[in-house]
């Protein structure tokens, strides 16, 4: 459960920072699609690139 709450907190915080298109990738996304391995949290955000540029 903790890992899902961490993912949700990450997504919500990125959205509050204006990065509304952030989404999950990696093991956690694989888990949601049906892979049974316990995931880590990886998030991809298109808008972070814009912030860096």
């Amino acid at each position, binding site marked *: 459960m903790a890992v*899902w709450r961490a993912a949700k907190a990450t997504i919500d915080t990125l959205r509050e920072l204006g990065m509304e298109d952030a989404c*999950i*990738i990696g093991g956690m996304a694989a888990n949601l699609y049906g892979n049974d391995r316990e995931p880590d949290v*990886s*998030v*991809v955000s298109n808008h*972070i690139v814009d912030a*860096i540029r």
Partner: protein
Amino acid sequence: MMEMWNSCFYLVDSTKPGAGFTVLWYHPHGKASIEHQSSIKPIKIDILCPGDANLPSFHPSKIVHWNVNLGNAGNSLRLPTAPLLLVLLHKVLGWRTRRRSSYDHIREKHLRDARDVVNLLPIASRRRVTIHDNVLPDRFLESASEWVSEFYATYPNHRAQYHWGEIGFELA
């Protein structure tokens, strides 16, 4: 920026020798959990951007949303994920990159990536995911074709060949 906005996030210097970077962690009690030895483990967070680890940009309409049930609490979380094709190909790339690493602790994780790919491949095939869905840029898919060929050469399998073919990667 994350740690300034939400105190549950905090940065810690990497413990890897000579790494010279910080790692983002999450804990419901924030950085205080380090001193107070909470029973809840902190969770490492990776935030990636297009361009990092060869990740391409994709249109936000391709994001897939999931409701994750938290069980006895009776509530659920709505979580957005990258499209399955990208999740799968990103795993293949992770396998390829880690397999070539000169660091033992990184290289040993390539087998975990391989298992993830083997599990995800039939799921993607069953969901009728294909490279012709206009989800990912052609340039990324051209590179991915090489990664998939390398993966298949390492783990040749008739069923896998069928599934990769269904997705659009023709393998000899």
